[in-house]
């Protein structure tokens, strides 16, 4: 029996784990930002983010969405004869982008929290 590449299964598994998290997370995120507030602006967002629950929720949602999104983009790339040096380079680029966007997004989140 052919063994499955551990890397391939890992990507597959993480797509599904993040997918399940996002089903709940994105629905809640959309509901709270569109339906439970006043006119969208800094004040509304800032007030919501005074609660530790939403700080943690938003930070986790950021990371989860980035992993799922870039994981998906990577999966698309893998389907098109991905190999060799280009694949290695793009792979590390994607990993870098996930980390970079997480850090940048977290900084942005901090400045939405601060009064």
């Amino acid at each position, binding site marked *: 029996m052919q063994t499955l590449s551990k890397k391939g299964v890992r990507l597959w598994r993480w797509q599904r784990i993040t997918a399940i998290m996002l089903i709940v997370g994105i629905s809640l995120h959309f509901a709270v930002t569109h339906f439970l507030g006043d006119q969208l602006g*800094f*004040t509304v967002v800032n007030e919501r983010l005074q609660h530790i629950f939403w700080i943690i929720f938003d930070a986790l949602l950021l990371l989860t969405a980035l992993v799922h999104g870039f994981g998906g*983009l990577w999966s698309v790339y893998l389907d098109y004869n991905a190999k060799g040096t280009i694949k290695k380079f793009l792979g590390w680029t994607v990993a870098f982008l996930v980390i970079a*966007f997480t850090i940048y*997004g977290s900084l*942005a989140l901090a*400045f939405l929290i601060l009064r």
Partner: protein
Amino acid sequence: MGKNLDWLRDAWINKHLAQWAFFINRLTGVVIALYLMVHIFINSIPLIFGPEAYTKTLHAMETPLLRIFEVLLITAVAFHMFNGIRILLVDYFKLSRQQSILFVFAFLLTIVVFIGALILYWPDIFGSGQHEIAAILN
């Protein structure tokens, strides 16, 4: 180059729902992934330009054109999510035989969300515009 367009050819000649589900899931996924990056940048405006600039930008974005884009984005997210749930169900509950029916459900739910979003944003797209969503919901 021809090999890279196989996915388009496949979606066209393999006339079964699962092929379309795959294609639309990928399409919506890519669009949403790109949107995510834009979304992060927009919400980093307080970081770079301060709170007032953020509020001003959000208000400036309430144009009919962008509202239409939002409706389409919501629809895309809805399809991607419902089809994603279909995939999870097929994988973890072994419902391969029901995958077509599940796709119909996913599609119908997407239509419901699309109509809902359209209704919600209708005043902002076709009406006098500003702040009507908040007025309706509060």
